[in-house]
């Protein structure tokens, strides 16, 4: 079983997000990057399948500038066997169709049985890359996967639907599956894993980025639509004010 996992490096939940003066991207020098949350689950799902079958290869694939190698190393230290870094200088594609096309071009000759991705990135949040990639490579696709089961040359996926419903969907391999966060318990890298990761191969490719079908014109902070009463002071003062709000404003009895 040959499995690719798409991982993306994105700003952490608590990172500052300063906007550059041209207003079309962030000042990346001030951003603290981490591995995209749902990609952790995609990686774990791939590692567990390899371990259960006691055979196969997990290849981590990431698109982005030099800094991206930090999350690639992290994935390798958790147990991925090797990596492919699709390096983009400067302009990281913000169009999922372009991003997925670059993945497709890179991966088409690798003949993966499975491609795992997180359901969406915590930066742009289009949630399309895994599906588009699967479609471009003629693979079966499924999204919002909560668990997976490998059958004979097939994969059975439990998908999350709306309003608390789920559904089992079975499809032939090769398949591109995007996973929902919470579908497993991602591991931490071991010390041995961290040491071993240094010797693992990272293949760097630098394809040309084609024209984008959609582009970001402007990034800005939202205006609050609601009047928010800010409660300030020491902890004791805040508690006192909150009690007052509970009693007299919200009228909790």
């Amino acid at each position, binding site marked *: 079983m040959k499995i690719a996992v798409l991982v993306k490096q994105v700003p952490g939940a608590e990172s500052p997000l300063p906007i550059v003066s041209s207003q079309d991207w962030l000042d990346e020098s001030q951003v603290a990057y981490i591995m995209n949350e749902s990609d952790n689950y995609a990686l774990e799902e791939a590692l567990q399948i390899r371990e259960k079958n006691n055979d196969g290869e997990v290849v981590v694939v990431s698109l982005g500038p030099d800094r991206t190698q930090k999350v690639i190393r992290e994935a390798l230290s958790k147990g991925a066997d090797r990596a492919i870094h699709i390096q983009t200088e400067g302009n990281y594609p913000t169009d999922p169709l372009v991003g997925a096309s670059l993945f497709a071009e890179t991966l088409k000759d690798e003949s993966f049985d499975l491609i795992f991705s997180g359901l969406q990135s915590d930066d742009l949040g289009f*949630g399309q890359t895994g599906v588009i990639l699967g479609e471009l490579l003629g693979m079966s696709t499924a999204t919002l996967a909560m668990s997976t089961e490998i059958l004979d040359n097939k994969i059975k996926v439990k998908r999350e639907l709306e309003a608390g419903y789920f559904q089992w*969907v079975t499809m032939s391999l090769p398949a591109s599956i995007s996973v929902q966060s*919470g579908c497993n318990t991602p591991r931490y890298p071991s010390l041995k894993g961290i040491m071993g990761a240094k010797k693992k191969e990272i293949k760097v490719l630098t394809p040309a980025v084609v024209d984008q079908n959609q582009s970001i014109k402007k990034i800005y902070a939202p205006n609050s639509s609601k009047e928010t009463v800010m409660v300030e002071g020491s902890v004791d003062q805040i508690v006192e004010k909150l009690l007052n709000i509970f009693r007299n404003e919200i009228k909790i009895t």
Partner: protein
Amino acid sequence: MDILIIIEDNNGKIHRMGLESITAAQHMSDKLGLSASVLVMGKNADSLASEASAYDMDEVLVLKHDLLNEYSSDGYAEAVTQIIDSESPTYVLFGHSYQVRDYVPKISAKLMQPFLADSIAIHFDENNVSLTKQMFNAKLLSDINPNGDAPYLISFQSASFLSDDAKAGSASLREASVTLDSSMIKTDSEEPFKESSGGVDLTAAELIVSVGRGIGKEENIPMVQDLAEALGAEISSSRPVVDSGWLPPSYQVGSSGQAVSPKMYLALGISGAIQHVVGMKASKNIVVINKDPEAPIFEIADYGIVGDLLEIVPKLTEAIQSK
């Protein structure tokens, strides 16, 4: 054809987001003088068509095919792609439902045309259209332009337009057809099911204390339970807390959990990702405690406290108990 709305079936009725898409299309028609039509498909196409024909639209396209009776991403993507090819709409509108996330990216790949997903607003200036989208976990907004020629696939986030605003009227029905064969459909789907919940029903709760990732670790959960008990409130959580196994899934509020509208929703250490916000923004009073002043949850807060919940919560519990 200018605008084509793809309607989703919700057990024989139009999915709420389908009505919201009708409102969006009517808004675009009013602004730009465009014609707007609706596509319904699947085993409930007839009942969906009769419901859709009572809105102010040009036409309702009715598509029936044995291979579209049950949803499959391959079947639906191929069918809608063929309809787009034959009808040549400029804009194809969807609600950003779980089903749309599953199959519309395939259409984008088949047509090599952009899918402007999860938009919250649409703007027109001169001859350019732009879509507003939340990015970076809803902390920032961006305006996005499609480049090149139409068609443009666009999905709107839940509640970006209101279903109640959809104008009534009448639309004529027209049969549509596509060519599908079973070899195109690579998936085999079983019946949808609900997990035995055995959980809590938060939908009728008067007071809710809800906990997010900011609680830090499982050992801190009892602190929140103590506060809920002192207030006589139910406890709930955002997704990361459930994903970490700190509370069972039945406690989750949001798009994949319960939708609540209590008198007070006290959000502790919840950042306010849209998937959570859609489940609680109807609350009468939203009180937020979060140490990150930039957390998007503050945008919908009635009362906001920038501070450390681990310090505030125990003292608040104590103060309520001592009254």
